[in-house]
């Protein structure tokens, strides 16, 4: 059992981080902390993708001269497609963070606080 866990430790790390992010989004009452939770959630998935593409003892898939003569040996190369996909996902993640931060600034300008409970109270008082 222990061996099973250790041999797949990368997936356990990703699940742990993902749950941590989910907890941050649900459990924290401060909007910036929620956002940080969201970032951890996204990064966890990025780590998942990176670990499915890599292989022990393999290198980037650039064919060498000797590969050109025979069949390329798949053990020697890792799959870089998931890594490339993650470039897109990182960009998306940054854009999401940017939009969320911009919205947080709007919220702060309006309510002068970032604690969710206080905002709800202010909104209840003003009826908006």
């Amino acid at each position, binding site marked *: 059992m222990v061996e099973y866990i250790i041999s797949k430790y990368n997936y356990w790390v990703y699940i742990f981080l993902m749950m941590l992010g989910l907890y941050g989004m649900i459990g924290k009452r401060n909007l910036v902390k929620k956002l940080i939770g969201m970032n951890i959630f996204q990064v966890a*998935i990025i780590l998942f*993708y990176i670990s499915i593409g890599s292989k022990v003892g393999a290198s980037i898939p650039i064919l060498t001269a000797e590969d050109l003569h025979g069949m390329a040996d798949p053990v020697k190369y890792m799959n870089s497609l998931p890594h490339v996909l993650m470039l897109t*996902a990182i960009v998306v993640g940054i854009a999401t963070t940017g939009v969320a931060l911009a*919205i947080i600034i709007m*919220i702060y300008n309006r309510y002068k606080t970032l604690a969710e409970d206080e905002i709800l109270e202010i909104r209840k008082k003003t009826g*908006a």
Partner: protein
Amino acid sequence: MRYGYEQCIVLIVVVPLITSFLAALLGWFKRWLCYPLVLAALGISFLCSLGILDLVMERGTIHYWQGGWEPPWGIEYVVDHLNAFMLVMLTFIALVVAIYSKKSVEQEIPEKLVPYYSIFLLMVTGLIGITVTGDLFNVFVFLEIASLTAYALIAVGEDGAPMAAFNYVIMGTVGACFYYLGIGYVYIVTGSLNMADLSQMLPGLYHNKAVLVGFALFTVGIAVKMGLFPLHVWLPDSYTYAPSASSAVIAPMFTKVMAYLMVRIFFTLFKPHFSIDLIPITQILTWVAAGGIIAGSILAIAQTDLKRMLAYSSIANIGYIVLGIGLANRMGLTGGLLHILNHAFMKGTLFLVAGGIMYKMGMRDITQFRGLHKKMPFTMGAFTIAALSMIGIPPTGGFFSKFYLVLGAIDAKQWAFIVVLLVSSLLNAVYFFRIIENAYLEPPVTAYATDGGTHEEIKRDELPLSMLIPTLIMATGVVLLGIFNERIIAFIIRFAVPASF
């Protein structure tokens, strides 16, 4: 014969994409250029979508390889009957709402006109992209383009909008993350991202745990994004506080595109046999949808804010669509797809009217609608048509989609859903007739002010033409969709339903 029509498939995405940046750039120097530029781009997109529909009806499925790279390696755009009709709907509604939005945006957020239009167009691009692409990861990219811009479009609204938008960011990101985690799991076992390629490979792997997990993640992710009943919490606030023009474009289009994606994944990416028999996902979804229909309708009755009421009614209507998907027989899915089309038009009309009332009166509390039919007869006429269609009264479109859903429920021998559909129609009648009664029958009282309450004659004060005509076009659309429903089904939707049904 018609050489070059295939290019429409890529132009429909590229033209609004480029124009959205161009509009921001030119709008910086010349503000007035922005609006005609946006209209021109959406107009071209709409013409392209008609061209695509024409081509698909003649030739069947068409493919476009991006940059000439053969699919599984390159990104492929695929259009069949299902997304051809989605594209026509999307581009048409986007065009109509764009025409409408100028006055409303100028009144609500005058200083942000140029960035608003740029982002508006970018969102439409994202939604079109989701619909047209045949590559799973490409869907994710377009999904994020559409979502990020939707957050921005909502956040610029009135007082509660930034908070609503923030909740939407959190929920929407979780949904999108689940979706692309799902892609990861499917990719582990297949090594491909192309939908057509995957649907060939997956049947042999249906009992693989990674595929099952991937499927579950797809389902939950899309359900969050489409606001399916227990996961709908972001939806009412977002639709209520967004600027009128934003809710008029997000409400009819965004959730419908997600419904389309659900159909794609359930019945194209995975074979119907998998989604129906191997795991009982469709069966579970029907019950979730039924819960959503009833809960959404009851919550809608409890609202006095028109836009919030429409938002809850949207949740109920997403229930109808998912019910159609979940019934998973020919009649049921036909009803579901028809309801995607009908609901887009109905909800579009209703939100356009709500925006119009906001524009003229500055309020949307339905208890203050008295005598509104004298003030704005055409607008309220459009509202009434759309409301009748929501309730499901022939010959409007809403009747026929509900009719097919009922036929689907009979075919599936699920009598409970017939009851749900009938009860929800009654509930719809309750909350829409409340407004119609207020606007038409109650004696007009101008004396909410304390100045003695003079019963002066209410003057007609219609919307400006640039807002009225789009509203009327949409309302006419609702009736036409009802009258020509048989043709729409015979020529388009019949081919969009999987052959094995």
